[in-house]
């Protein structure tokens, strides 16, 4: 009897430990990174998380530096270094994926307020510069050589009613995702028309392969994680 309750206790403390670990900043960044990596469009920049992590990284760097001058066990140091490298990789990769998305969809992001507000200050500046450069390049090499009424970079000609030359992310692509809680009432936006009225539900922890458009709002509110 005593042994079984002991095991239960152990399992409880294991669960506590896992719950605790899953809320550390590195874990949160890992989540944000995975979502950003899998989502076809750019997601909200994790302002606070990134600034917190920057501080932590600096702290880690200092610690490693201090420890490397003092006589610490090299194995311990190398483990510390590895942890540091992984965190730094996550941060770099996260920022990199976002920059690459901006490079791809700069015009679309710039003219869509919702997306534009998701960028950090640095990313906004980068987007402006990129647009300016690409515009100049395309104007110089193509647009200036065309008749005046066909020179717009966003529209095919002056007779187009809306911007029809802007590359946009494909929101109809399928993504792998997992819900953290029981969700119901998800409207599917693909498949045969008769099926669309049926509402879809998700059990927590079950993997789904689903059209990104249908769960876009839930990803943005953090209820669903992409994989």
């Amino acid at each position, binding site marked *: 009897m005593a042994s079984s309750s002991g095991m239960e206790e152990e399992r409880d403390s294991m669960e506590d430990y896992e719950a605790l670990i899953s809320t550390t900043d590195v874990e949160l960044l890992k989540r944000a990174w995975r979502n950003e990596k899998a989502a076809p469009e750019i997601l909200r920049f994790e302002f606070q998380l990134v600034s917190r992590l920057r501080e932590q990284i600096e702290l880690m760097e200092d610690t490693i530096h201090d420890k490397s001058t003092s006589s610490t066990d090299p194995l311990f140091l190398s483990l510390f270094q590895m942890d540091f490298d992984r965190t730094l990789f996550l941060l770099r990769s996260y920022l990199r994926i976002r*920059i690459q998305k901006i490079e791809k969809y700069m015009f679309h992001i710039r003219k869509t307020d919702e997306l534009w507000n998701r960028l950090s200050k*640095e990313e906004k500046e980068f987007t402006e510069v*990129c647009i300016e450069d*690409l515009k100049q390049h395309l104007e110089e090499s*193509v647009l200036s050589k065309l008749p005046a009424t066909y020179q717009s970079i966003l529209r*095919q*000609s002056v007779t187009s009613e809306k911007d029809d030359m802007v590359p946009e992310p494909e929101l109809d692509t399928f993504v792998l995702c997992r819900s953290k809680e029981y969700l119901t009432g998800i409207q599917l936006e693909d498949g045969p028309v008769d099926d669309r009225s049926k509402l879809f539900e998700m059990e927590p922890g079950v993997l789904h392969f689903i059209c990104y458009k249908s769960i876009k709002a839930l990803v943005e509110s953090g209820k669903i994680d992409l994989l």
Partner: protein
Amino acid sequence: MYGRKAYQLVKEFASGEKGQLAPFNSDLFEQVVAECSQHHKELQSLIRKIEEEGLDIQTARNADYYGALIHHLALVRNKRCLMAYMYNRAEIMPSLSWKIGHVLPKEIEEKLSHSEVEYFKKHSAALKSCMSKLMVDLTVDMVPPKDPYIQVRVLDDIGEGIVLSDDRTANFVRHSMHFLKRTDAEPFISQGLMEELTS
């Protein structure tokens, strides 16, 4: 046939190897641009003709109107093809600045038009200034680190007394082998000056 040359231009790009740049086809490109001007000239003369006949362009549905429409559509299509050609080529350039750094190798520069070279320079400068503002170098650490240190072999003389991130200096003589921090070695590996030794 209208639009055939533009189609060839796009097809040339599409049939090229992915992520690789073919030489800029300025010859065909200029021909398509000339075709555009020709379409525009004919389009305008047709519109003038409709106007001279006293018809309203919005409502006229005679042969001239449809002729003008064909020219307009052909022009739009050509524009789309030209833009697609340029844009897709331009899209490769950021990926180049990720992969090979901010200096364009000669053999690639030869394949680009003047404007494209300018664009590459400007774009990598923008990327650089963005990274310096973020205070993170994003061009290293392209693959998840397994081990903070890797074994490398130097493929070409890099020089002596190169300072590494931990304030040590190293002599990278050709064919010598080193055990370096991954972040120190990555720039050299991407420039083709070192190779990683995997056991």
